[in-house]
């Protein structure tokens, strides 16, 4: 971690550690070394994040819906992943990770690497260590998986009633106008939030607050499912949800420890934190639930673990192991209240709790990172670390993300509604999206 001290002045980033730095071509730097160990780890991490999305997230969500909508959720996650992969190499990577020039550059990049122009097997992307790089294709692919899972997460909020065509149109729009600007602002050196010194190790703001708020907006604009609060809308297979939750956890090691960009002690720290925070969060959710409702449920501990994974994401390489446990405990307990109490009190139908877990857990993580990263609390924040000062920066990052994704999502749902319509008909919803949208059934016994 001390290397970040050396790196940061070069980036002009106020002496604070930041999660991602922009790739630059090899010839720009003084012949950076590409280490085969780092490259291998990043390739494995990339594959792990794909595992986390398809099938992990798809199964986690799929088990939670009713039998008649199982395929629609699997299909939406798979199709979103595929669509974003293509858009990412067309223009996504370029808009997120190249310079946008004076003025707009703080918010969005340019088109200089559209269609991956100029990228070859010899191109490199910087890591956190001066003079050490990874192949740019590796960085592009790793970042592709982050861009792909984020809109896939939103699917859970409007599950069981959205039109498939609306998912595809919205994903294309949302990636372009919400995800790419936020990713650029947080992770690229000229980005607005990067410049402020906001800490986001693996994407608490970019991935989780971003998708959580977009999910909440979607749930509100699309409306409740037919029968919400009256009929039995129970999960059709908690077994598959369990399998999905476990795949999410395993895949998250690529997400968090991979965000270290090098196979170093920093990656190991992120990995152990990614074990401890979800473990603590799952136990916290389970305990609060058992005390409140009398029984500890599997869905409860699994949901708590995911909330812990979300919360540790921005702090993965910055918190100490004990700090990550505390962060996990808080996230598990607070997300339980958000999902079971606040949602029912306010009456919105966030079907699979995208906001309650990713939005709320993401906000806890983003703000909590300002605390647990403090060297005085055994964290790995660098420079003249002031908890109060860092907290202000973290809150600014959260508010900017909330506002951008909140307002942007409202507009983009509206546009999607005008182009293809957001919601299926009542008859189609009762029949189930599997038959209505895809012409097939998940189970034929």
């Amino acid at each position, binding site marked *: 971690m001390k290397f970040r001290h050396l790196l940061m002045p070069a980036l002009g980033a106020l002496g604070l550690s930041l999660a991602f730095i922009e790739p630059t071509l090899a010839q720009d730097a003084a012949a950076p070394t590409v280490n085969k160990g780092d490259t291998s780890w990043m390739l494995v991490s990339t594959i792990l994040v794909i595992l986390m999305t398809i099938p992990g997230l798809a199964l986690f969500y799929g088990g939670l819906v009713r039998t008649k909508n199982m395929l629609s959720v699997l299909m939406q996650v798979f199709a979103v992943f595929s669509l974003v992969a293509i858009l990412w190499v067309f223009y996504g990577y370029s808009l997120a990770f190249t310079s946008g020039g004076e003025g707009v550059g703080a918010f969005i990049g340019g088109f200089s690497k559209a269609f991956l122009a100029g990228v070859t097997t010899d191109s490199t992307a910087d890591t956190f260590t001066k003079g050490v790089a990874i192949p740019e294709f590796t960085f592009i692919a790793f970042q592709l998986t982050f861009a792909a899972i984020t809109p896939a997460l939103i699917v859970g909020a409007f599950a069981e009633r959205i039109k498939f065509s609306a998912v595809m149109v919205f994903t294309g729009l949302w990636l372009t106008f919400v995800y790419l600007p936020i990713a650029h602002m947080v992770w690229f050196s000229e980005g607005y939030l990067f410049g402020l010194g906001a800490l986001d190790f693996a994407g608490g703001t970019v991935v989780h607050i971003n998708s959580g708020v977009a999910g909440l907006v979607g749930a509100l604009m699309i409306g409740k499912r037919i029968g919400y609060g009256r009929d*039995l*809308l*129970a*999960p059709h297979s908690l077994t598959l949800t369990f399998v999905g939750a476990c795949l999410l956890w395993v895949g998250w090691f690529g997400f968090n420890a991979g965000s270290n960009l090098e196979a170093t002690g920093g990656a190991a720290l992120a990995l152990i934190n990614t074990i401890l925070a979800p473990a603590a969060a799952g136990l916290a959710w389970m305990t609060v639930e058992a005390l409140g*409702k009398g*029984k500890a*449920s599997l*869905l*409860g501990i699994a*949901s708590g673990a995911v909330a812990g994974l979300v919360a540790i994401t921005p702090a993965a390489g910055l918190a100490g192991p004990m700090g990550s446990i505390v962060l996990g405990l808080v996230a598990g307990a607070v997300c*339980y209240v958000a*999902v*079971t*109490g606040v*949602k*029912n009190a306010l009456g919105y139908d966030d079907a699979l*709790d995208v906001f309650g877990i990713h939005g709320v857990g993401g906000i806890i993580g983003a703000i909590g990172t300002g605390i647990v990263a403090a060297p005085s609390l055994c964290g790995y924040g660098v420079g003249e670390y002031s908890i109060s000062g860092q907290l202000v920066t973290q809150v600014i990052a959260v508010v900017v993300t909330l506002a951008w994704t909140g307002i942007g999502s409202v507009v983009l749902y509206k546009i999607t509604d005008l182009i293809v319509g957001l919601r299926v008909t009542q008859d189609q919803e009762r029949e189930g999206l599997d038959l209505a949208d895809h012409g097939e059934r998940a189970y034929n016994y």
Partner: protein
Amino acid sequence: MKIVMAVIKPFKLEEVRDALTALGVHGLTVTEVKGYGRQKGHTEIYRGAEYAVSFLPKLKIEVAVASELVPQVIDAITAAARTGQIGDGKIFVTSLEKAVRIRTGETDIDAL
């Protein structure tokens, strides 16, 4: 001929089958059903959303027998399926006009 139809607790099936076999009844149809009576259902909670599940899983057995065997069949099922708790189920008896064994064409009592 009569059809004796009984709705029983699922875990009582083997005992009921054994009791009927002992009476010389050599055929039984079983269907998985759901229903409610005096037995209360239970509550399921998924992430805080509580659902009252009032339809409980039961097994429905149907057996066709000669009319004179009906009292013994009722006694056998009652004895085998009883736990003494609410939810043990019910027995219904209806008349059966005709029976045919498809393989041989035998009819009525010969077909049972």
